[in-house]
Structure formats: structure tokens, C-alpha cells
């Protein structure tokens, strides 16, 4: 990180000190897209992000002010507490001018407002599942279904996990038949890469299905 910062002066060819803003500058800047990596606590989200990211996963945080009412507090006075919600993310440069960010969703399901912000504008999501704790994936599956954000399931195969078939996992998670379920090893760059390409192929194929509707609406 530090080396990058010190190198950044090499990109300072425009002589920014005291120069005037360029109105067209935004057009030259990279476009960013994002994919979410969701799933229960300890399922390997950050490991997955780290496996394919070109940078060591970074962490951003948001402050959440919660109004908590103590159950035992007979005075009935609200007490505001501040919680920090941390999100790990990584980056993949797709090409010059196009960056893909991978965001791990916060492990605690109660931070739904962060899920809303993360989902906004996302291409799609990977829900990582652990066969030892499949139920931990339910909240993420439910969330993306309700939100209408396309997702696939990546089954992270832990050595001591049960060897379910893809069909058994699909049944257990009560998934629609069209949602891909892929087996993966979140530690492996190649494996994580295949999960991501599966997701993007799924996004492309979903478009083919959705497209006639879109044009029908546009033409009416």
C-alpha cells in the first residue's frame, strides 16, 4: 500500500498543483462495477475475495447508530450506541478503465441497511455456502431473491464437510431450478475465478430471458 502511494507521484504528469479542474476529466476515469460475496459468518468470504483480488483485501467501515432500548431498563430511556460495520473488499482490474470490486457482505445479518447499500448497482452476488451449516446461507438467499439481485451459490468445500450433491444442496436451500450451484475451494484462485465466471455467464444468460420483456415494455 505504501509503495503504491509513493509511486503515485509518477502519475502526476498533469502537474496538479494549482492547476484548474478539467471538466471532461470524469470521462477518462475508470468505471467500477461490483459483485457481492455473501454467506454466513466464517464461510470463507474474505478468503474467497483474497484468492482472486489483485490487492490484499481492504476493509472499509460504516458507522451505525442504533437506538437500543434496554429490556431491563425500567426508566424507558433510549440509549444510542454506535456500532462499526466492517466490510472486506478486493479489486480486479478487468482492463484499463474497468475495475471490478468484490465486496464481502457483513457477517451479521442484522446490518441489512449495509446490504442495501452494497446491493445498489451490483452486477450480482455469489452466496457462499458451507455444507456443515447450510442454513447459514438462508438469509442471503432470501435477501437477494426479494431484492431481485441475480445470484449463484458457491459451495465452499471444507475438508470435514459433508459431500452433498449439487441437487441435494439445491433442495436444501429451496432454490429455483435456474440458479446455478457450483462447488468451489475459496482458497484457490482458479476456483474462485471459476465461480465468478459462472456468475457472469449466468447474468448474461438471464439477460437473454429478460430481454424480450424489456423490449415489449419499451415498445408499448
Amino acid at each position, binding site marked *: *500500500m505504501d509503495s*503504491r*502511494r509513493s509511486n*503515485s*507521484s509518477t*502519475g502526476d504528469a498533469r502537474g*496538479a*498543483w*494549482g*492547476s*484548474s*479542474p*478539467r471538466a471532461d*476529466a*470524469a470521462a477518462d*476515469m*475508470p*468505471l*467500477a*462495477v*461490483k459483485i457481492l460475496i455473501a454467506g454466513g459468518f466464517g464461510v470463507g468470504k474474505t478468503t474467497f475475495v483474497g484468492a482472486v483480488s489483485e490487492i490484499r483485501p*481492504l*476493509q*472499509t*467501515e*460504516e*458507522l451505525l*447508530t442504533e437506538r437500543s432500548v434496554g429490556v431491563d431498563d425500567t426508566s424507558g430511556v433510549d440509549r444510542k450506541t*454506535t456500532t*462499526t460495520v466492517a*466490510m472486506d*473488499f478486493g*479489486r*480486479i*482490474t*478487468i*482492463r484499463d478503465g*474497468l*475495475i*471490478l*470490486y468484490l*465486496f464481502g457482505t457483513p457477517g451479521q445479518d442484522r446490518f441489512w441497511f449495509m446490504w442495501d*447499500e*452494497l446491493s*445498489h*448497482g*451490483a*452486477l*450480482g452476488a455469489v452466496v457462499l455456502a458451507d455444507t456443515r451449516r447450510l442454513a447459514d446461507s438462508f438469509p442471503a438467499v432470501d435477501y437477494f431473491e426479494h431484492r431481485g*439481485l*441475480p445470484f449463484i451459490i458457491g459451495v465452499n468445500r471444507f475438508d470435514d464437510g459433508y459431500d452433498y450433491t449439487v441437487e441435494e444442496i439445491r433442495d436444501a436451500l429451496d432454490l429455483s431450478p435456474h440458479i446455478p450451484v457450483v462447488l468451489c475451494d475459496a482458497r484457490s*484462485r482458479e476456483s474462485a*475465478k471459476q465461480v*465468478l*465466471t459462472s456468475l*457472469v*455467464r449466468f*447474468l*448474461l444468460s438471464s*439477460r437473454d430471458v429478460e430481454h424480450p420483456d424489456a423490449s415489449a415494455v419499451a415498445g408499448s
Partner: protein
Amino acid sequence: MIGRDDHERTEWLDEEAGPLVRAYALTRGRARPATQGEDFEMIAIIATVSTPAYATPGLGPEHMSILELCVRPRSVAEISAQLGLPLVVVRVLLGDLLSHRFIVVRRPQQEHQTVTEELLREVLHGLEAL
């Protein structure tokens, strides 16, 4: 020699003040950016286009750190991570910088429905080439 290190650590905020107090100190109590209509999404890309030639009222060291970082364009989330500041704080600071026109913002696509097939194909090819 005065214990300079000790002096630097003696901030007027102690640990118990918590992250919220530090956040509001940096933003002078503001929870929203000064600029209307720019919400600085996490993957919005920020680039420095100009820096103040002399001290500008209302701009502190954190503002300057952002301008330094974004000589090489990067996302709001990266700025937050690299400066160790919560997103809510970074957004307020970015609002200040944008109102002074020291930065430009490249917004991401708004909703996944608007993403073009061409863009998805580019992402797919890029991932396959990794």
C-alpha cells in the same frame, strides 16, 4: 527534548470518546456531504484534478490526504480503507472537496438492470484472462 511522540498521542479525544465522536470532530458535526445530488457511492471513482495552492479555510489534513491519494483515481471504499476513516466521514470530506472542485467523480452504473451486455462480456473476458 520534549517527548514529541507523547505530545502527539495526547489528543483531546480519548479512546472512550468512541468512533462517533472522532468522526464528527473530523466533519465538524456534519453527517451529510455539503454537495447536493452526489452520494459518493462506495465504488464511485474519485480523482484529484486540482489542489489548493495555499491553505483553504475548512480543509484539514484529512482533506489533503484524500487529494494526495486520488492523484491516482480510486474508489470511495478504497479511500475509506486506506485512510482508516468510516464511509460517512469520507463522504462529508469528499463533499467539501467537490464543492471546491478539487476532485471529479465517476459514478457507477445505478442498477444492475441497466448494465449492458457488452459490459458483462468485458467482465467475463477479463475474469477468464486472469
